[in-house]
């Protein structure tokens, strides 16, 4: 198995690492970078628990090879509340009880954040379409829809995600 040097910036911090060709980005984040907020919920890219932002767009990090993310900027759930304040999406999930067990939550929050970067004020149908690729088994989704609406009304995607999307970090 060949190894490659990669330089990846995660939540504003760049490191150089030597990784196997086959290492998935989600495992790079969890194992190499010790950022365990990004979860693995399936092995067929259906569940979206591993959703992160890569160069300004949401991706399922189980479908990205680490080597393909060389020189990339990644934003994970740990980077959303960069200044210690919950982002509007995180706060929306808290206020509207948009999570129960919390396992899908990091991916769901990242997907919702990505949606709000693209669309400032999505309606219910647009929210449901925007998070369709993320599965939650606890909530039945209705309170997640409320959470995203709350976020849209209280600042949207938030500072860290907006800066990431603008290429400022």
């Amino acid at each position: 198995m060949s190894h490659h040097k990669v330089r990846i910036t995660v939540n504003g911090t760049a490191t150089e690492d030597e990784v196997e060709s086959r290492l998935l980005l989600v495992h790079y984040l969890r194992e190499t970078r010790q950022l365990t907020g990004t979860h693995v919920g399936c092995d067929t890219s259906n569940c979206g628990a591993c959703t992160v932002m890569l160069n300004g767009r949401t991706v399922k990090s189980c479908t990205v090879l680490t080597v393909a993310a060389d020189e990339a900027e990644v934003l994970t759930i740990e980077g959303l509340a960069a200044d210690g304040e919950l982002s509007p999406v995180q706060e929306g999930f808290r206020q509207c009880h948009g999570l129960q067990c919390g396992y899908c939550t990091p991916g769901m929050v990242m997907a919702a954040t990505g949606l709000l970067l693209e669309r400032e004020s999505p309606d219910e149908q647009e929210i449901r379409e925007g998070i369709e690729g993320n599965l939650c088994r606890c909530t039945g989704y209705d309170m997640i829809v409320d959470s995203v609406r709350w976020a849209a009304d209280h600042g949207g995607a938030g500072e860290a995600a907006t800066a990431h999307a603008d290429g400022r970090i």
Partner: protein
Amino acid sequence: MGSMVGAAVVRKEDPALLTGRGTYVDDIRLSGTVHMAYVRSYLAHARILSIDTAEAAAMPGVLGVWTHDDLPGLPPNRSVPGMERPCLATGKVHFVGECVAVVVATDRYLAADAAEAVLVEYEELPVMATVEAALAEGAAPILDGLPSNVALEQVLSATDAEEELAAAPHRLSIRLKNQRCAAVPMEPTVCLSDWQSSGLTMYATTQTPHHMRNEIAASFGLSQQEVRVIAPDVGGGFGAKASSYPEFLLTAELSKRLRRPVKYVETRSENMTSMVHGRAQWHEVEVGFDDDGTLLALRVRITQDCGGWPDATGIGLPTLTSFMAGGCYHIPVIAPSFRSVVTNTTPVGSYRGAGRPEASFMIERVVDQVAAELGLDPLDVRRRNFVQPGEMPFATQFEGIVYDEADFPACLDKLLEHVDYEALRTEQAGLRGDPDGPLLGIGFSTFVEMGGFGPTPLFEQFGYVGGWESANVRLNVDGSAVIKVGTSPHGQGHQTAFAQIVADELQIDFERITLIHGDTATVQEGIGTMGSRGVPVGGSAVMKAAIKVRTKALRIAAHMLEADENDVELVDGVFTVKGTAQSVTMGEVAVRAFKPHLLPEGFDLGLDETAFHEPTNLSYPSGAHCCVVEIDRGTGKVRIRRYVAVDDCGTVINPLMAKGQIHGGVAQGIAQALMEEVTYSGDGQPGAGTLVDYTLPSALDLPHYETDHVVTRTSFNPLGAKGLGESGATAAPQAVVNAVVDALSHLGVRDVEMPCTPQKVWRILAEKAS
């Protein structure tokens, strides 16, 4: 100080979970950890001729490969007595996904590589993937030592009700299927075992850490103090994480042998065949009734597919189905019986509701079919047969099954305040004449189920040491409080709910209360979180412990105030001598509790009390749900236009979290009604082995839910709470299916089998059109 119980406060759990700072088992890193991977059977029924591990053992990073024969003395997985399932297959495999060998390597990728390199030679055996095949004439027993594939058969009534059925003016035979579903918690099974000379520490995705500790200690011949089981943040369970899995014992055994921590992380595809499935019951129903829809007799013969190895919990579930067969109705004679059948499929265990949704689906479909047979409104038949509030507590014909306080008619009345039934019927009639419009269907579910599991004699039958729950409440010197509780949440929000209860009892700030759970080394004792017992049983234990602390604090306050205890009261966090201005705060009392020289001689220091709550009975959450569907005539797709849920869970601790529980349960019930099914081909190959094939609903598949409550406090526990976690999943399937059948009823349709997929509904429409 306003009451915290009943307040919709946001959860204490959330900041960590929302920032990626939660701690699930796979997030835990111990130095030197190695990774276990399974070699699983790809055949449903086969004899193992040989296992060649040589190539795998020589691969990079591999520490070893083990089969059953390499692990002499390893105890079997938790099992039904006489049907002990070995952790690794011995001689033959019974279902696709059964564990055959394990590999341990330094890295999870290398472990997976090596598992691929293990060569297993099989001799295929005839596969019995259905109960029909397993019960066929001449079918060989799948489990060695059993005379047939019937693992358990029981009759739960003295009569078969034939006399009453024969005498009834009307009689219907109905066959119902409650299909096999997968729980699919978003976090699969994960465990990390660290066996040291001082004992074993295991981090595991479980709903029942104390129960696991007891079993693991007994299995390995360790004393309980040598085993520490920790359930940290757990990513959903839905009953399936109350079962035991071979990896718990295997990682422990291999950690002992390798003297390193051993971690196992199940993949989702493994999870779909390894984690217990739910439901999988067939009901042959005979119902007798009067001209006006009065129910006279009910016979239910239940056949449960219990899979390739009967699960210790799973095999008990048809008993619960039997007990709840009558639903919220007066039925003079109920005659249930069941048989559990071994098949070459994944074992069947608990899944949200665990035996009660099957009963509720059955009786609610029966009531609708009785109404259809007589041309009556299904609501009239329900009202005619309801057990009335004045009859509560209501003793069913089954010993110990006594419904607590409830008001079934009030739930239906409240539901109809939200639903303009007459207008819907008018619209339905109009749409039936419009070939371009959808078909409208209105379905109801008036349900009762069981919550608050215990008591001990019932729980002993499921292998638990008791049906109680335990709690400890301790005040620190600064007046802040720590709760320890034996229930172990996996999304329910115990930190928040139990802090609300203690905040009320001790009148201290909610923000100054913390909960510790899910660790057998720090929490005194516990049973676990299942059977909607968190609030009614765990919460009651918390309440009792808090009251003990308050009682002791009051004694200290009386001493400080030099007053009689009977003259001191706690109001807004301040102890006051009634009718005077003399007072001390709870904070001052907390300090005094640690000052022996300022207390009466011999006074026990501290404010630290433990209490157990043994429920005197189960509780019985109930409610009335309505589903309005639109069926597209061209595609057969069912769209839910409205879903309205009125629930009576007794006291509501936190309306926000109660809403979440109802939504989640209803979502799973809707998904069962319309989408989900674990299928097998004739040769036992799973048709839903990944999330590509298993139709877990997304946000686009599920509707907005409307919820409301009727509050009838139960007298069976001090909180008056009945539990709510399983109500939605119990109520929803039949509300949806009744609506689907109602939409098609003018075509002469009496039943549609779950799941009501577009294909199935379209075929019915096409058939009726021709």
